[in-house]
């Protein structure tokens, strides 16, 4: 399968196996097409998870990952792409409806937006939360100090 995809997409796709697990590093521009093919032709019918990793020192700061599973093949694969801060990705809600909340969580924690997502808003944190906590440059106590200052009128709760 990987060979077939490799032939079709050439240098935009880089298959890797690490510790017996397969994943593909894919160019941002190929993402919608590859996810569609994986679902329609390669039988990856179950989207296990959508998540991201932040590398602040990199030019393209985020790795976004789709962890997929195929019931007929009993196989897992991860699709990984790099995007810059502010860049958006196409939603895969129309491929795997389960991506709805998972993408919302990625937005909530990393601030990565998904185009054409039906309901792109925070899911776990309150609507008025500032910043995106799972970014590496997000200070753990900044939110706390601010809240304490406004609500309790003291310098720090720490």
């Amino acid at each position, binding site marked *: 399968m990987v060979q077939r995809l490799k032939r079709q997409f050439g240098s935009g796709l880089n298959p890797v196996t690490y510790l017996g697990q397969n994943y593909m590093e894919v160019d941002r521009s190929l993402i919608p097409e590859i996810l569609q093919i994986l679902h329609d032709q390669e039988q990856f019918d179950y989207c*296990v998870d959508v998540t991201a990793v932040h590398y602040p020192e990199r030019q393209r700061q985020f790795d976004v990952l789709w962890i997929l599973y195929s019931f007929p093949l*009993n196989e897992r694969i991860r699709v990984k792409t790099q995007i810059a801060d502010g860049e958006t990705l196409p939603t895969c*809600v129309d491929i795997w*409806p*389960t991506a*709805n909340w998972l993408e919302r969580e990625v937005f909530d924690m990393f601030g990565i937006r998904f185009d054409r997502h039906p309901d792109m808003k925070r899911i776990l944190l309150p609507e008025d939360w500032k910043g995106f906590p799972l970014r590496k440059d997000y200070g753990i106590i900044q939110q706390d100090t601010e809240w304490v200052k406004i609500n309790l009128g003291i310098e720090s709760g720490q």
Partner: protein
Amino acid sequence: MTDATKYMSHLELGERDETFLDSNELIINMGPQHPATHGVLRVILKLDGEKVLGTECVIGYLHRGVEKIAENRTYTMFNPYVDRMDYVAAVSNGLGYCEAVEKLMNIQAPPRANYIRVILTELNRIASHQLWLGTHALDIGAMTPLFYTFRDREEILKIFEKYCGARLTTHAFRIGGCQYETYDGFEKDVQNFVTFVRPKIDEYEALLTSNRIWLERTREVGKISAKDCIALGVTGPVLRASGVKWDIRKAQPYAAYSEFDFEIPIGEKGDTYDRYLVRMAEMRQSLRIVEQAVGKIPSGPIMAKVPKVIKPPAGEIYHSIEAPKGELGYFIVSDGSTQPYRLRVRPPSFVNLQALDIMVRGQLVADVIAVIGTLDIVLGEVDR
């Protein structure tokens, strides 16, 4: 896009659909402090009289930022935190985490440790299902099962307490094996428990399985097809009750599961009653596994050779196990230091909860309670 809209669960609060009783269309709030929501779940319901037109879940009240905590702790320090996600099945959480880190470091837990892990995890699965049954039945109006299941669950918690000193957040496993050797009489205790609880499960079934009220409240309620389950990523007993024979313990065996003989119970219709039957059958299968395992715990060490400082090589891993609620996965990115660079938990409850909307649309308000119960969510895990 037409297919996807079927699964969308957000309400257009401003819009009003054409309804049978148009003047009575109502938006009400259920929760967050509602005893039948199993924690702090808030559901916004759009109703036409008693009929549910749509729902939207508001979650996050119990969010503690587990994934961020992980980035600021060493691998060992983070281990007890995973118990606090699905706190009624803490042993499963620990097993998934320890195995993921072991995989990343390329170490193998010794066979004796794997057997102890399987026994404790399966006991925990029974405890989790018992808690589910008691509270689910209580939500629907049957009070007795709660007392029965809690009485029997206590026996499991006693075994946990004797083994590791804790009843709920057990922290039973360590990276590389188990910290504690089994206590004297462990095997006897477990065997006694198996013979004790087997007739008790029949007792629960005698109360409910052919109970007229139970049947009326659960049959044809919250139906979900196998196709919808897969599309929505629903796993665990909910998926199996819809007829998909899939269990990670069989599909991609971990720990020592490949050495035991057990079946995957499945349902047909995917309604609340089928999910009840599947979970009851699962408890019996778990007992079978425990019975097989406890008779032949191999001797040997309980810890693999693990370096004093846990420092996995740079790389990434995804490992998942079959928790009582469904697929529990850990995705860990290591940068070669003592702390995870990124740790992602794929929680079964969070993903399963997404199916609530499609399961209750067109049903009655009282059924929403039944469906929340049957999904078996733990808000600690939904919100993390």
